């Protein structure tokens, strides 16, 4: 019998099945002829492709031969292979096969097994056409939606993976940029103090890779200009300011302007540049080896320590001045000192004087302070400059138990014995 479906394509019934373009393939299994015929008729009228089978074994043979049905409608009590086993075996071919079960009378055990197996709905015999049509449609719709969701999920997942890849690429790229920046930063900051007219020993350790403390020494025609600066913060912005300071310092040395002018210009520049929360403290020390004098300017920085040759005392050199970057107007006290051959100076940043540790048993905190640093320096006062700087540094590290809380910098200078005559 040929039956024209609701749209294009011929639809055949019974054992000769051709998958029409619109019709899903439904397999109806029941040992009663009338059930098979009426269900088959109702469903094929709706445009579905229907095959029928008399019992579980026949149905299973059809399923295994293929194609696998889009929906299975089956009775439970059948000879040769009952409904439950059929469902179970059919699901081996297609895990998510939707199933409608034809029930004659309620049977609790069967119901329990059905729940466990999972079936989409029940059709009570005798079936009304409308109920059959509706439940079949629902079962198929639900299945279609689930498939769509799964495809959707897969698509979203693929998109996510692609996004992840691109984020990862971006991150790698930026990380490479940062690493480049660090290298460039260190190149820019790298010191030119190895051929200085003074003897120099410097130890430093930044808190993080970028930013923070800075020192530079430049020869002038009469001697040397020395700068030690501490920029608040350890971020990229801090390192930007550090490079700025170095540039200004170089320029200042070239033009020979005073420390006061240098600080004033620097202050203005710091205030102008974006957020005005960039605090800088610094020491500017101009050494004149011809006249054996030194001129010191301080921008709120920890005091420089001076040790005369053959002395056992490290004496702080007093010089007051405003911190840079915070105030509109800044003022600095100038401090002139006489230099003697072999005299040493220790310049440092507050990471050193703020070095601290917590006493184990009592929990009390102890800070090194200027006082503590002086004592450490005085312990090594008889040693050559390089050793002095190394030992004091190690002592400080031991004091804070290697726990750094800030950038640390220690610069030791020595006025040459013969004055300007021997060097430069």
């Amino acid at each position, binding site marked *: 019998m040929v039956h024209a479906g609701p749209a294009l394509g011929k639809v055949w019934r019974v054992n000769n099945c051709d998958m029409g373009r619109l019709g899903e393939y439904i397999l109806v299994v029941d040992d009663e002829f009338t059930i098979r015929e009426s269900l088959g008729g109702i469903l094929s009228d709706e445009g579905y492709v229907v095959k029928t089978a008399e019992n579980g074994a026949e149905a299973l043979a059809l399923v295994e031969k293929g194609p696998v049905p889009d929906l299975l409608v089956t009775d439970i009590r059948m000879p040769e292979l009952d409904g439950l086993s059929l469902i179970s075996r059919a699901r081996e071919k297609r895990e998510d096969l939707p199933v409608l079960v034809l029930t004659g009378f309620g049977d609790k055990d069967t119901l329990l097994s059905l729940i466990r197996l999972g079936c989409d709905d029940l059709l009570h015999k005798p079936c009304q056409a409308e109920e059959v049509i509706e439940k079949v449609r629902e079962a198929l719709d639900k299945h279609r939606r689930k498939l769509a969701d799964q495809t959707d999920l897969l698509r979203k997942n693929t998109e996510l993976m692609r996004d992840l890849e691109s984020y990862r690429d971006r991150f790698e790229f930026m990380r490479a940029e940062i690493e480049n920046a660090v290298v460039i930063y260190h190149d820019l900051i790298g010191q030119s103090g190895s051929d200085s007219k003074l003897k120099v020993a410097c130890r430093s350790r930044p808190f993080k890779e970028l930013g923070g403390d800075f020192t530079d020494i430049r020869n002038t025609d009469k001697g040397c200009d020395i700068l030690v600066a501490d920029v608040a*913060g350890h971020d990229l912005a801090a390192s930007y300011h550090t490079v700025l300071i170095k540039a200004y310092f170089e320029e200042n040395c070239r033009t020979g302007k005073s420390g006061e002018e240098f600080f004033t210009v620097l202050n203005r520049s710091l205030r102008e540049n974006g957020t005005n929360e*960039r605090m800088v403290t610094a020491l500017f020390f101009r050494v004149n080896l011809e006249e054996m004098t030194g001129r010191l300017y301080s921008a709120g920085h920890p005091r420089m320590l001076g040790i005369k040759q053959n002395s056992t005392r490290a004496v702080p050199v007093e010089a007051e001045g405003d911190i840079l970057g*915070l105030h509109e107007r800044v003022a600095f006290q100038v401090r002139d000192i006489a230099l003697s051959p072999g005299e040493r100076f220790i310049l440092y940043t507050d990471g050193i004087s703020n070095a601290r540790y917590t*006493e184990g048993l009592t*929990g009390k905190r102890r800070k090194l302070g200027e006082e503590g640093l002086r004592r450490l320096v005085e312990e090594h006062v008889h040693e050559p400059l390089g050793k002095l700087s190394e030992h004091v540094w190690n002592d400080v590290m031991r004091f804070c138990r*290697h726990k750094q809380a*800030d950038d640390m910098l220690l610069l030791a200078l020595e006025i040459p014995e013969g004055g300007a005559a021997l060097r430069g």
Partner: protein
Amino acid sequence: MVKKERDEGSIRLELASELKNVGPVIAELRDFLKDQGVGDDSNVVLVTRELVNNAIEHGNMNDPEKKVNMLASFVGEGRLLLEVEDQGQGFDHRTLNLSMPDDPTQFRSRGLALVNAFTDEIFFNEAGNKVSAYVSAKEETHFLVQDDQEWVVITPTGDITAEYAENLRSILLNQIQEKRDHFRFDLGKVEDIDSISLSILIVFANMARKYSPSAKLVVVNAGKDIANLFEMTRLNTIFSIQ
């Protein structure tokens, strides 16, 4: 297998040297800390985990016959003494370098350096098979804001350092937006103010004075160090230290 002994303010655990015992040890420790009112503190847990791992792997060479003994006892408010002992040969702790290696991929040398970073003090017995560490359960600084008539009283519960800077900044900003202009900072519990936080205080002071010429900024109960700090940085010209 973990044996346990618990006391008023201490807990002793003995375990066979197998890494699978670390989990239960940490669980017991967490329990103990909770009972003592110390939050599930990552400091203490991290240090203990590292020390016990070390004892199992390096001290006892993963030999399940050998035991690791751990003792955690309170020595003060929020402060613990952790002791971990193994039955191994020990090692030469005198040559130990406790600073963090520059290369972050060096896992081996990081262990004890990590422990050092998170503890106040770490020391060894003669043989080097027992490590002791004093740990402070870390406490965050909060900023209490109260009203005293026309004064806004701000009391930090601890040091003002970079990690709390953002918080401080937004609190101060709020006050300015609410048109307050009399500020009293009670720095009794503050032992340290880092440069970032100082910057924030200064910017805040400038802002306050800009918005209200009659603004008053006062600091009370400052310890010697803090008072010194304000002097050295000339902040005592902006904040009146009382």
